[in-house]
Every structure is written in structure tokens, then in C-alpha cells.
């Protein structure tokens, strides 16, 4: 198993390298000069030349890439042109804000989804199970920004003005006013939960039909103990991978939701940077999201391997 995990880790590193290459090439080397893109209509030959110099656009691609990568390892990602400060300084509070949002969403979504999934499995083929299955199918299909807008229409406008429709505040104290977080968190929860619910249901059904659960029941254990001590913990194993994948999805999924709620996180920073053509920020955020996504997927793979008894026992 260790060998298998090392193998995955190696490919993870390789993927990280290729992804950094893609981010770099997409922004600095595509047709359409980065300096031209950044200056837009304000481009004069002198300013273009100065900016090309600053971005090292005149040097060979390999050198440009090398210095960019070297910068990443020393936390020097260049200067944000729109915010007029180092990218790291500009992004740090936003990363924290996004992480807080994602963490709250994960903490809310995971237990609810697991409970719903397990409960559906115990009520298999009854009205409640069919209802949950239908609702998860529906919620999973709707793009997350549309879910957010439906929530805004329902809870922030019209008759029920319970929560603010957009976030008002700075990036460094997002936890100060929890009522502002309710709608963005709810949107994320609705977006990530359906696959967890479905997986938990499937896994629980399998476990409930297993012999050891039958044995526990025949032994005369109360159903409560059977579910909580025997079935539940065994059912969660296979779901862990799905949970990890969903958390990885969150990294990219926050972009549209932060944009919708004007939440000052990395997603909004990315959209603002695209608007102002602030290339160092675009590069940093795209790379950051990809890295989180890759690392989480890697973890999900490892968790999946560890949860799979066949792999664990065969000890390759």
C-alpha cells in the first residue's frame, strides 16, 4: 500500500509541476501580450516597454518561468498592479476569508449530509427516501450561482428580508457579522451536500445488509446500538473519499459564489483581477485553487486506498 501511495504522491508532484506550467503559459505566453492586456487602451509604447521589463517579458520563456517558480517558493508572487502592493499581502486576508467560508460550509454540510444519507438508507424505499433522492438530484443539477440567487430571492428580498443579499465589510474580519455569512454558507452547503448524501445512503445500505449487522441484531442489541456502534462507523469509510472530493470542489466552487455575494475572498479577488487585468494576481489565485484541488484529490485517493480493504491487505 505504501508503494501505491508513493506512486500517487509522485504523480501528484508531477501534476503540480504541469499545472504551474499551464498557469504560467496561459497568462504569460499566450498570443496577446500580457503587458498589452494589462494596459489595454492606456498602452503607450513607453509604458508597454516599461511593463514588459517589469514582468520580464523580454527574457526567454524558460527564464521567466524559472523566476516565477522561484518567487513562489519565497512567497514573492510579484506586485498586484490594481492594489499596488505585493500579491501575497493583497491575497493573505482574502485566503483566510475564503478558508473560513469553506470551513464553515464543510462543518455544516458534512454532518447534515451524513445524517440525511444514513437516515434515507434506514428508511429505504419509503417516501422520505424517495423525497431525499429527488431533492438531491434537483439540487445537484442547479448551478451553484443560481442556487445562491434563488436563496437571495427567497430570503433577502421581497417579504422575507432576513439576511443581507451582499456582503458588506472587509476581508480581515469576515466572522464579525455572522448574519452576512448565512446565505453564502447555505449556498455552498446546498452545492456540496448532494453527492455526500447519495454516497452515504449507498454505503449505509450495503452495510445494513451485511452479516455483521444481522449478527448484531440477532444478538438482540438495541437498534440504536446497531446503527451507532456497528453500521455507522463502517459506512462512513467509503464516503470519506467523496467528502474530500467535495471539499476540493469547494476551492473552485467559491469563485461564482463569492462573486455573487461580493464576499471578499480569493474568488472575488480572481474576478476583480480579471477585470483589471492584474496578471500576477490571476496567476497566484489560479495556481492556489489548482494546488488545493490537486492536494485534496490526492488525499481523497489516499483515503480511498486506505479505506479499501483489498488494497490494504494485499500490501503492495
Amino acid at each position, binding site marked *: 500500500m505504501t508503494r501505491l501511495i508513493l506512486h500517487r504522491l509522485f*504523480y501528484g508532484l508531477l*501534476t503540480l509541476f*504541469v*499545472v504551474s506550467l*499551464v*498557469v504560467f503559459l*496561459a*497568462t504569460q505566453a*499566450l*498570443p*496577446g501580450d*500580457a503587458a498589452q*492586456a494589462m494596459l489595454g487602451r492606456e498602452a503607450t509604447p513607453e509604458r508597454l516597454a516599461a511593463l514588459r521589463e517589469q514582468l520580464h517579458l523580454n527574457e526567454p520563456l524558460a527564464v521567466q518561468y524559472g523566476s516565477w517558480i522561484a518567487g513562489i517558493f519565497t512567497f514573492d508572487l510579484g506586485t498586484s498592479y490594481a492594489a499596488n502592493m505585493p500579491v501575497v499581502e493583497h491575497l493573505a486576508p482574502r485566503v483566510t476569508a475564503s478558508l473560513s467560508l469553506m470551513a464553515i460550509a464543510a462543518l455544516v454540510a458534512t454532518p447534515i449530509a451524513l445524517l440525511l444519507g444514513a437516515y434515507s438508507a434506514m428508511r429505504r424505499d419509503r417516501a422520505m427516501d424517495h423525497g431525499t433522492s*429527488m431533492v*438531491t*438530484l*434537483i439540487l*445537484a*443539477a*442547479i*448551478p*451553484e*450561482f*443560481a442556487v445562491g*440567487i*434563488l436563496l437571495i*430571492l427567497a430570503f433577502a*428580498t*421581497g417579504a422575507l428580508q432576513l439576511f443581507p*443579499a451582499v456582503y458588506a465589510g472587509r476581508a480581515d474580519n469576515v466572522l464579525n457579522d455572522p448574519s452576512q455569512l448565512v446565505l453564502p454558507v447555505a449556498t455552498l452547503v446546498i*452545492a*456540496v451536500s*448532494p*453527492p455526500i448524501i*447519495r454516497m452515504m445512503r449507498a454505503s449505509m445500505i450495503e452495510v445494513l445488509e451485511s452479516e455483521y449487522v444481522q449478527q448484531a441484531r440477532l444478538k438482540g442489541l438495541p437498534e440504536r446500538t446497531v446503527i451507532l456502534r456497528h453500521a455507522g462507523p463502517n459506512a462512513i469509510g467509503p464516503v470519506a473519499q*467523496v467528502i474530500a*472530493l*467535495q471539499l476540493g*470542489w469547494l*476551492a*473552485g*466552487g467559491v*469563485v*461564482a459564489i463569492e*462573486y*455573487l455575494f461580493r464576499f471578499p475572498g480569493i474568488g472575488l479577488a*480572481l*474576478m476583480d*483581477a*480579471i*477585470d483589471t*487585468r492584474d*496578471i500576477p494576481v*490571476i496567476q497566484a489565485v*489560479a495556481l492556489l*485553487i*489548482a494546488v488545493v*484541488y*490537486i492536494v485534496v*484529490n490526492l488525499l481523497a485517493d489516499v483515503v480511498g486506498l486506505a479505506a479499501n480493504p483489498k488494497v490494504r491487505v494485499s500490501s503492495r
Partner: protein
Amino acid sequence: MSTATPPSTAPSPAAGSAKVSPKGTAPASSPAKRPGLIRTAWGHGRTKIGVVLAGLVVLIALVGPLVSPFSPTEFIGTPNSTDVDGSLFGTDQFGRDVFTRFLHGGYTLISIAVTSALAGVLLGAVLGIVAGYLRGKTDEVIMRANDMMLAFPQLVLALLVMSIIGPKVWLIMVLIAVSHASRVARVAREATRKVVEQDFVKAAEAIGVPRARIMAAEILPNITSPLLVELGLRITYSVGLIATLSFLGMGLQPPTADWGLMINENRVAITVQPWAVALPVAAVAILTIGANLITDGLSRASIGIDRGVEK
């Protein structure tokens, strides 16, 4: 897997989302006949609901432009007003008719989504079949390259590339098709691996049928069920992705009437003029829900396992 369904008789869900016909499959020639995929899928109640929902939205998108009361770029009254003579839902931020723009806003979205999903499934199927059948080095190279593609969330990849080149319709289609392809390729490869083990493939190899012909005539027809499910799934995703891109201002550009863009343009005035946001959101939501229900029905019919949208 319905081994008796040649690809030509499977109606493409492009048209299928509007009118999946229960009579579309089941060739009469095969003696050991199982009901066709589409017919089995139609047996699930949720498929019917899905067809009705998606069909309704597709109908609006197709017929809407022909019956709209105004021109989508015509100014008909004061901006952001819900009370304009002769206008059903009032005016948008520039004083254009909301209902007209709603009727015009779906055609491009749906055609781009369906085209890129079709292209993605086609490309993915080719890659998956080639990787699964030829194995060895080819398999390794294709699937490793695939893994790299999968390392990016689809939306972030699209945003990254478009941040420099700018939002162009062909670029959206290429990016979405390519990122779909790598996901489809995985499924197609798995399905191919199962088919390759079977005797009729070995028989074809033994009598010296060219490999390209084996892939096209022996393998492809036998993996149409998973591919059809995949197509449904990819259409659902495409609609969501393209609507999201438009909503983020990185899709279709003003003054085009487009659902995603309408939501973006009018969400500031959501309290005064909720219709300009509510109509397109409802359309996108109902379309994706319908497509996902159809996909779910197809997948239940094809493998008996749930395979809806996962994010």
C-alpha cells in the same frame, strides 16, 4: 449494457432533451431482445418529468425569439420598471423588455452547451476507446495527459485562459469540450476494457479485422449506453458552466440577450425588478434539473446505479 443497440438508432439527447421518443430504439433484428436503453429509461417516472421540464425550456429557447413582442435591444420604457404598458414583466436596467430578452436568451446558451457537450463526448469517446483498446504506452500517455487536465476545476481553467484571450464563444466551446473530453475518456476507457474481454472482439481480431474497424464497429456500438449517460451528464454540466461563465461576465457579451448575462446585469436591481433575474434563473434551473433527471433515468436504465451530477 444493451449489446443490441447500434449507435445510429440511439437518438441524440440534443434533440432528446426536447423529445426523447420511446420508440427510438430496440432494433427488431436481434432475437434475444432486451428493451432498448431509451425505452427502459422512459419507464422511470423521473425521466418523464425531466423530459417535460427540459423540453419546456428548450421550447421557450427555440420558439421564444419568433414570438417575442419586441426586439431584444429595443428601448420600450423607463429602466427597471415592473409597470410598463404592453410589457408582461417590465423593463430591465436599460429599459428593454424583460420578457423579450428572456425569450431570446436561451437559444445561444443551449446551442453552445449541446455542441460543446457533443464535441466533448465524441473526443472523450475516441480517446477512451483508443486508450482502452490499444493499452500499453498509448494508454499510459493518454490517461496521464488526462490526469493533468483533470487537475483543474473546469471553471477555473476556463477563467484562466479567457482572462488573457478574452471571452470568445469559440474559446468557451473549445475549453468546455476539452475539459469534458478528459472526464468522458475515463468512462469510455473503463467501458472499453470490459468489452475488449469479450469473445466477439477476440473473434474479430482472429480473422484479421483492422484495429480501427474493431474500435469503430465492435467496441463503439457496445459502449453507447454509458456514453449516452455521459452525454446527458455533460449537457447538464455545460449548461451550468456556460451560464456561470456568462453570469461572471466571461461568457456572451452585451448587448446579447443571454440568461446568464441577464442575471449578472440585473442583479443589482433585484429588489425593484426581480423578474429580470428570476425568469432567467428559473429557466437555467429548470433546464439543468430536467437534464439531470433524464440523465438519472438513462443511467438507471443503463447500469442500474445512480449516477447524477457530482461536483
